[in-house]
């Protein structure tokens, strides 16, 4: 086995150019695919933090007496998935708007009466942070006769979720395509290596070398190419991540979210996949090239 490794390493050094081309190709494919993974991971984090901030607003019909309000509040609090219910009276709501729109305070001076309705601000438990469950809660709220309208940014969430899912699908498809493309590029480059060494392979066969003896170093080369390609691709991604995250986080000083790099498990998975691609490429070309 040590002999096979030695031969593989000496073969890589003997064919530096072709091996470099293969490693760069794998590195670029890995960079693109892992950039997608990194984007999804962070987009998912952003979506989750947005979802955590989602509040359902239930607006009451006008002139509901105070005891009735408390009764409704208790009823809502008892609903599945509701964590907290806060009553916001129309006066409180107006004051809030006034403080938020200090510069436009003249707009409120001419108001004869408060046009805002009383409302409940409902916070949900984390188990309820998905679109279907939010919609179900909204329907239950709307079924209460004293509730006039329920609002939770439904259109926005629906659009964003479908856009995100579409993007995710495209990402998976592209990941798959890059995987296949990388495998075929490796197959072609190893075929070039094999072609440049066909005489050597032929001589080895004539002196009684088994298929295993001939193929093993090529497979090891493929594995090394795949692993090195992944390391370089991920290295490039990490440099880009450091550069981008320092810039983006400065501009998003709100601390709303921080860009995270891929987890150790994901990195390991990518390296494993890439190593497999390297092996697969070699397998394809060897299968076609080495036939008695």
């Amino acid at each position, binding site marked *: 086995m040590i002999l096979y490794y030695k031969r593989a390493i000496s073969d890589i050094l003997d064919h530096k150019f072709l091996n470099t081309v293969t490693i760069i190709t794998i590195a670029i494919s890995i960079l693109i695919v892992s950039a997608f993974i990194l984007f999804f991971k962070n987009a998912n984090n952003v979506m989750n933090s947005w979802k955590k901030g989602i509040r359902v607003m239930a607006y009451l019909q006008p002139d509901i007496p105070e005891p009735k309000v408390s009764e409704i509040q208790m009823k809502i609090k008892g609903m599945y998935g509701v964590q907290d219910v806060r009553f916001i009276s129309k006066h409180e709501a107006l004051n809030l708007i006034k403080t938020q729109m200090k510069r436009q305070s003249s707009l409120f001076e001419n108001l004869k009466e408060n046009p805002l309705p009383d409302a409940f601000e409902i916070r949900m438990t984390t188990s309820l942070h998905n679109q279907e469950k939010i919609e179900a809660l909204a329907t239950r709220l709307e079924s209460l006769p004293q509730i006039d309208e329920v609002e939770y940014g439904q259109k926005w969430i629906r659009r964003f979720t479908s856009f995100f899912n579409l993007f995710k699908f495209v990402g998976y498809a592209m990941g798959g395509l890059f995987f296949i493309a990388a495998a075929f590029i490796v197959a072609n480059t190893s075929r070039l290596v094999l072609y440049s060494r066909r005489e050597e392979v032929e001589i080895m066969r004539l*002196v*009684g*070398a088994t298929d295993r003896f001939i193929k093993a170093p090529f497979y090891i080369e493929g594995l090394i190419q795949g692993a090195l390609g992944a390391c370089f691709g991920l290295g490039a991604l990490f440099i880009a991540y450091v550069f981008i995250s320092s810039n983006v986080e400065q501009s998003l000083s709100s601390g709303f979210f921080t860009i995270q790099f891929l987890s150790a498990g994901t990195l390991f998975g990518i390296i494993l996949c890439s190593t497999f691609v390297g092996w697969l490429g070699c397998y394809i070309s060897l299968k076609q090239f080495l036939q008695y």
Partner: protein
Amino acid sequence: MTDGKDNSTIIRMFHVHKTYGNKKALIDITLEIAKNEFLFISGPSGAGKTTLLKLLYLGETTTEGQVLIDGMNLSRISHKRIPFLRRKYGIIFQDYKLIPTKTVFNNVAVVLEAMGKKRRFIEKKVKSVLRTVGMEERLQAFPPSLSGGEQQRIAVARAVIGDPKIILADEPTGNLDEDSADIILKLLKKFHTRGATIIVATHDKELIRKTGGRVIHLNQGYLQKITAA
């Protein structure tokens, strides 16, 4: 003509035919070669000399007929067993067939590496064989830096290092000057005396005259006659 050393047959061919498309390369060849024989296959270009050698080491398969090597029927041999069959042979080519990117040492060592021999044994054996062919000084040289005669001596070293039962040489002196050809011939004779069966395909009548032994004459694929040199 086996010098009375060991007369048992090592190679048998029965009604062997080989065709490439419409071209008949060998037609109805039947012959026997004894162990430790020094045999020549002679004939003009295109007579079928190289094809006959190829059939022996399964570089080609017969279209019809049977070839038996050391009792092993080649038409029944599985692909997996082919490398083990080839280890019975040492093969020498007119164009040497050395790996240009590997040193002399590695070119010769590859046979033992393929057999799975230990590194220490390989080093010892390669040096010993290179000493026998007079190339021990060029251990680390690369084939392109050597003369034709030197390259063929390396090819002979590679052919004999695995202690093969049979040495096949296809026009081994075809590209060499007279002095270099004599060296190769002497080496072949040396390994013959050590017990190997030597089969040389050549159209060089002088080489046959100098050596002696049986000569199989081929012409346009037919076995014309078998003579003693």
